[in-house]
């Protein structure tokens, strides 16, 4: 990682402090003119497709999880050529340090960061606390959309295997730890789909056998920043029962909230082998003959 790190004390306790930056750090870099020259880029990625247009961090470019990062036809992410074209158009080169932030405690920012990682973008960091914290601190916003100088981005084949789990991978993984980051009602199966939205939901409710229920938001503090290492350890090592070195799969409904948890497990607690199952419940809850457990108990594997 070429660009200077944020060396604050909270981050130092994490396994990979180089993956987070604070709002103070970013504000200082911007004041120093860091965005000129293409070494650093700031990317906003929100749930709401128009939020960027209402005001964003000066110099930040917008990448939308849905319209930019998803393939229009297949349920998959864009391919190497499309990713290269997108990033170059945003002024990002392969060696650019990218800081991503967004709304909703960085759900979509974490998701975008995870997609950047599928393409092996080396230096990509999250702005701790995201958009809301930046605004809460009264920092500068602008509606000026930058016109970045075209970046130099090679066509890179996506390498999904290390951090992305498909349904068959999850079936093969059963017996090892899973983290379900959805709400309690989704976990128990009380809720299968949202009213008036049968098509977005699932035909079956419940969770993948043995998955621990740790709703994503429990990893976040009031201000949207990640909780301290100690608090995260209490949550995932204590309550969820993970052990150092475990292989873990995280999932939610479509993979966005679980990206937030994936980030915490991989970079803050240092689990090397964590995969995000982006098919998540919208796939599992509709798939034929996959095992499901209902209720509050995690269940066993094999099912008893």
């Amino acid at each position: 990682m070429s660009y200077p790190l944020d060396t604050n004390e909270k981050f130092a306790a994490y396994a990979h402090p180089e993956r987070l930056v604070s709002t103070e750090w970013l504000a200082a870099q911007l004041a120093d003119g860091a965005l000129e020259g293409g070494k650093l880029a700031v990317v906003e990625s929100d749930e709401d497709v128009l939020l960027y247009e209402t005001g964003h961090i000066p110099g930040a470019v917008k990448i939308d999880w849905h319209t930019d990062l998803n393939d229009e036809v297949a349920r998959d992410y864009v391919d190497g050529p499309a990713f290269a074209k997108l990033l170059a158009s945003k002024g990002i080169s392969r060696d650019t340090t990218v800081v991503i932030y967004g709304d909703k405690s960085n759900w979509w920012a974490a998701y975008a960061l995870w997609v950047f990682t599928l393409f092996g973008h080396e230096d990509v960091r999250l702005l701790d606390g995201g958009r809301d914290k930046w605004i809460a601190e009264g920092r500068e916003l602008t509606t000026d959309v930058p016109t970045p100088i075209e970046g130099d981005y090679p066509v890179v084949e996506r390498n999904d295997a290390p951090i992305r789990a498909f349904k068959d991978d999850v079936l093969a993984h059963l017996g090892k730890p899973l983290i379900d980051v959805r709400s309690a009602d989704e976990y128990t199966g009380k809720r299968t789909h949202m009213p008036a939205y049968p098509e977005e939901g699932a035909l079956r409710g419940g969770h993948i056998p043995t998955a621990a229920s740790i709703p994503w938001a429990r990893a976040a503090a009031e201000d949207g920043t990640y909780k301290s290492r100690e608090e995260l350890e209490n949550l995932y090592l204590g309550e969820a029962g993970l052990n150092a070195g475990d292989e873990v799969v995280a999932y939610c409904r479509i993979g966005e909230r679980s990206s937030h948890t994936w980030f915490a497990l991989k970079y803050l607690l240092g689990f090397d082998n964590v995969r995000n199952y982006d098919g998540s419940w919208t796939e599992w809850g509709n798939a034929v003959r996959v095992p499901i457990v209902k209720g509050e108990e995690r269940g066993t594997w094999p099912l008893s």
Partner: protein
Amino acid sequence: MTTNTTIPAPLGEIIDEFQALEERERLQLLLEFAQSLPELPERYQDHPERLEQVVECQSPVFITIETEPAADAASQVVRLFLTAPKEAPTTRGFASILFEGLDGLSAREILAVPDDIAHELGLDRAVSPLRLRGMTAMLVRIKRKVAGECHLGQTA
């Protein structure tokens, strides 16, 4: 379910306005709609419990309606009251389109609006079909309330 669907003129004009624009400009127009959604009148601002939440929307959206008496139930004029947070401009934009397109119409006209009207705006690519579901949910909620309060049987 209503069988005869018709797009009322004010909503039709909004759809034409969107369709006449390039895809990128449609987002800008949606943002302008988001900015023009009127504030709730005080009687609702002070009594949020009188509004119903559209739970299908990921952002908190609240709606309610008032009706003005008419000779027959279906001719009652419907006034709409919608609110969505400033932090959710897309949702606000949808609410604002429905407000401008439907407020002041008769119950009959509102119930005749096709449920899948959101897809007529040409925003599927720029906004994504997933997000457009929020607008469909709002419309379905409005129609349900209109049918209920005007005693016109169930729709949707």
